[in-house]
Structures are given as C-alpha cells and as structure tokens.
C-alpha cells in the first residue's frame, strides 16, 4: 500500500504539539488551571514532546521517500 503511515502520524502529532505548546504558553500564568498538576505546565511539556515526536516521524517519512526514489 503506497501510503506511509509515518506521514499522517507525524503530521497529526506536530499539529497537536503546536496547539498544546501555544496553549501552554498562553496559559503560563494561570495558577488555577495548573492546580491539579501541582503547578506543572503539562500542556507546554506534553506539547513540546508531541512536537518533537511528530517532527521525528515526519523526518523519517521524508527520509523513507528519498530512499524509495533512489531505489
């Protein structure tokens, strides 16, 4: 099947990552919001993590495409 699943996975997690990172940044000073998470800005951290994961997946997908073209 000519679809590389790494592409949509990478894309989706990158979008989630950007969304949560921005949301985390905008709500940085919201003490009430982060009370349940002991003041940890989980949105920011999870957002960054997802962004890195998503980009890594995209990178692998692109590398795979290049290899395919060469072959």
């Amino acid at each position, binding site marked *: *099947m*000519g*679809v590389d*699943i790494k592409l*949509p*996975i990478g*894309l*989706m*997690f990158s*979008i*989630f990552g950007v*969304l*949560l990172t921005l*949301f*985390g940044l905008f*709500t940085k000073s919201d003490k009430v*919001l*982060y009370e*349940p*998470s*002991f003041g*940890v800005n*989980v*949105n920011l951290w*999870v957002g960054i*993590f*997802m962004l890195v*994961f998503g980009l890594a997946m995209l990178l692998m997908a692109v590398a795979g495409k290049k290899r395919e073209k060469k072959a």
Partner: protein
Amino acid sequence: MLTADQITTIFPYSRKIFNIEDKNFLSFAGKSLLTNLKTKPMSSLTLGWIDYAIMIIYFLFVLGIGWALKRYMKSATAFLEAGRSLPAWVTGLAFISTNLGALEVMGMTGSGAKYGMLTTHFYWVGAIPAMVFLALFMMPFYYGSKARSVPEYLKLRYDEKTRGLNAILFAVMTVLASGISMYALALLLENILGWNFHLSLILSAAIVLGYTYLGGLSSAIYNEVLQFFIIVIGLLPLVFLSLKDFGGWDGLKDTLAPIVENKGYAADAWTTTWKYTGKASLNPMGIEWYGIFVGLGFVLSFGYWCTNFLIVQRAMAAKSRLAARSTPLIGAIPKMFIPFLIIVPGIAALALMNTPDRNFALPMNDAGQPIYDYTIIMLLKQYLPTGVLGLGITALLASFMSGMAGNVSAFNTVWTYDIYQSYIRPASGNKDDDEHHYLRVGRIATIFGILASIAAAYIASKFGNIMDFLQTIFSMINAPLFAVIFLGMFWKRTTGHAAFSGLLGGFLIALLHHGLTIPVGADTVFKGGWIGVVHQYPVEMAQNFWTAIFACASAATITVVLSLMTKQKKATKELVGLVYQLTPRETDKDVAWHKRPLTLAMFVLLILVILSIIFW
C-alpha cells in the same frame, strides 16, 4: 483442583478469553461492566475548546487515512487482506492496539487499584509466552498456508463443514462484540461528558464506518497504529503526575504500605507480582503461583492469542512470511510496558482514595461498593488540566474505535470469504471479475456489519440479560477452537470429521455444563441451571472457568478419539504447509541474526524475566 478463591482471580481473565468481547475489558469485567457504567459519577467532566479541537483534529485524521487509502482499494485482496503488504512494525503495533480496547484500559486501571501490580500477570505471563508461541510455531502455518482467515485455515486443513461452523459463529460473535463496545462508549460519553446517547452512538458508528468503508483492513490497521501512539502519549501525563503526586514509585510504595496493611496484607502486597503468591490468602487477588501459571499463562492465554482471528488477521496482513512471524513479537515489546501506563496510575488511585484531604472518590454502586471501572476517568479529572485532558479523552475514544474497527474488519473478511464465497456465490474463475465482485460484497458487508452492531447496541441497552446470555453462549466457541486448531497443526492424523465433531461437541458440552450448573446468587435462568441444577459454584466466574475447561478438554478428547476412528481424507501432499511435521522448517539463514524471529523471541522473553525480577 483450584479453590474458589483462586478461581475468582483467574477468573477475570478466563472471562476475557472465552468471552465474545475478546479484546475488551467488558469480558474481563464480565457482566458487571455494563451495569456499572449505568451508574453516573457524581460530577461530569467539563471540556474546553482546546479539548474539542484535539478531538476533532483526531477524527479528521482518522477519516483522512481512510480517504487516502481509498484509491488503492481496487480489489477484494486489497480491501479485506490489506494486500498482504504491510511492514512488520505496523502490523505488530496494530496487533497490540486491537487488543487495547477502551474497556480494557478502564478495567485494567480499575484492577490496578483493586489488585495492584498483580494485574500485570495479564500482560506478562498471561500474554507473552502465548504470543511467542504464536509467532514461532503457529504463524508459519497461518501465513504460509495462504489462508485468508482462521476459518479458511480450518477449510484447508480439515473440510468445508468445519470452516462453515466456525465462520458463522465468528461472524455473529464479532457483530455482538462491536455492538456492545459501541453501547458502552455511548453510555460513557453520556455519563461523563453529558453527550446525547443516541447521537454518540450514531456518530461513533459513522466515523468507524467511514474509515473502514473507505480503506478496508489497511485503514483499520493504519489507524490502530495511530491509535496506539495517541493512547500511549495521551496517558503519559497521567502516569507522571500520579507518580509525582506521591514522590515517585518509592514514595507511592511508602504511601501504600499503611493502607494495605490496614486491609490485612503485607506492606508491599500491591507493588509486587510473585512475592505473595505462595499462598492465596496473602495477595489481594487470592491466587497461588501455579494458578497464575497454568490458568493464565497456559490454558487461557494460548486459547486467546493463538486462535482469535481478530488478532491473527493483523499478522496475516504482513508483507512477508518473516514479517508475519515477527508481528506478534514486535507487538509483545510494547505489550510488556503497557502496565506502567495503565496499572500504575490505578495503584496511585488507591493511595489517593485513602488520602482524605484529596477528595478523591469513585462512584458507588447500589450496594455501596466503589465502581473501579471509573478509576481512569476519575484520575483524568483529578490530574489533567484542559488541554492534556482532551488528549486523554481522545485516547479513550481512540481505543474504543480501534476495538470496533477491528471487529468490523474481521467480520467483513469472514463474511465475504468464508460465508458468501463458500455458500452463496463461489468464485467464477475470472480473477478480475471476482476481485471486483468480492470487493463490492466486502464493502456492503462493512455497512451491514455496522448496522447490525448498532442494532446489537440497542438490544444491549434494552435487554441486558439477553445480551449477557448470548455473550455467554458465544464465549463457548473459543475453547474448543483452540483444541481443534492445535491438534490440526501438530498432529497430521487429525481428520475433518473429528475436528467438526470436536468443535460442535465441545460447544454442546459447554452448553450442557452451563445448563446444569449455577453460581450462588444467580437471579435469572440466563446465568445457568436452565436444564436443572447439579452443581453450584461459589462465584459466577468459577462457573465460566469450568465451562471453558470442559469445552476445551472434551473438544480435544472427541477430536483425538474420532481421528483414530475415521479415515484421513486429505492426502499427505495436501497437508504440507498446514501441519508441523510435514512442513519444512524455516531456517532464516538468509536473514541477519538480529532480525530472526528466534532472536527477537529470546529478547522478548529476556525482558519478561527482567521485569518479573524487578517487580518480583
């Protein structure tokens, strides 16, 4: 002989294995889950715009994957078998994702609170050895035989009638399972998010229909991979925050010590796996080590992992024999670590419940018992702020969908190949024509399967008892099936007549056993004793467990005896590739040593041993 106490514990699992809702906790929790979910938690979750945004983006991607695959769906092979073209890491993750249904996630987190680390036995000894066995010893025959489904393997190995019996039972079973899953999802959304029950039901059905109709099995499998990652990442914050709350794993252990001592157990009874299994009364599960070994590790897990088409279908879609054999092994690696994701937060929930100033409580049922199935929901509410909360809820939705899609994609394959092609319209011989025709049939079967599931969901909501009864009946087909497939693969003398009689006989003996026994406190004839009562079991689980043992043992006996009495109609030549002794062993000489399934299997078993020692 197992004592009632031990059985109660093996029980959850046996239920899971012999139950139709095989991959969901529903089966594990037995009948109580649907009733439990009917009780509303005291407060519902409130989602913000960002939570909805995450959910909607996820749905768009799910449908988008189906849409992207649409143009490849030109033949029945592509639609129903994913063209046997997927890489091993994809099928491996899908293999484990299909099994990670939402009801299982909910139930296992609950079990974490209830039984602690002992719950990991369901993931370690109760799954890994069976998965390794499937990979090394059974997959070569399932994949190598070119069978397109487990019923079709029965046809190749035995005969048409054996296939027919299995195919029809399996088709009905998967539709019921997906219907019940759908019902539970809608109920949950209604209770915790306040969504409309009917709307939730139709919407979830429509999304699953959308992506399975467009992209078939490939779409189901690709989405399972996506779902796997979202489940893992969505639940990670929960693990970190719950551990942080109690000062890490060691802090959690210390917090738990007085709590569980208060319950009459050793201080570390909730955080160890084998340590207190010397005597049943010492551990919260009430089980001894040999009960875990034999009950979970052998009888139940082999029956589940090695014969269930839903699971095996993922490996069958792999692109090569090597990839197919590696699939269960690749799946086994994340499988071993899933407990840290769902059981550990459950254990933290027990600590939370017992810390008065935290105000953490599970909803109670009518009898005043906490409903453990809600543990994960209450944890999400406790720790996650809006944003990651949406991610967590999306993870739960994702696991529900992978469950339904798995059932639907198994159903349409069995329907099209094993029922429609065998009995209604045999292949015409014109390959192109056939592929087109069966593609259309597969698509129609997908729609029909979803509609039938919706009907099943409504029946479940109106007549819970009938659904329970049907589930019990269909739960009786897996145990005899394992006996028959195992004998077929490893004993060339096994004949078709014997296998058919074994399947049917095992099923009837199970029915008879159910009709003659009753659990204490049964209030309807649906729970047994509808013929007469000759024996009473202390708990319902014990009854089910013995039903399965009787079914498996009698199926094996009937098959062996009749095989010796009947003539083998299949020529030895026909059995090559289907039976162990007649098939040349794969040596993997041309595969790099670190890529060989045997090496991978050793690696998996090594991790299993290390984990077991660490959490002894």
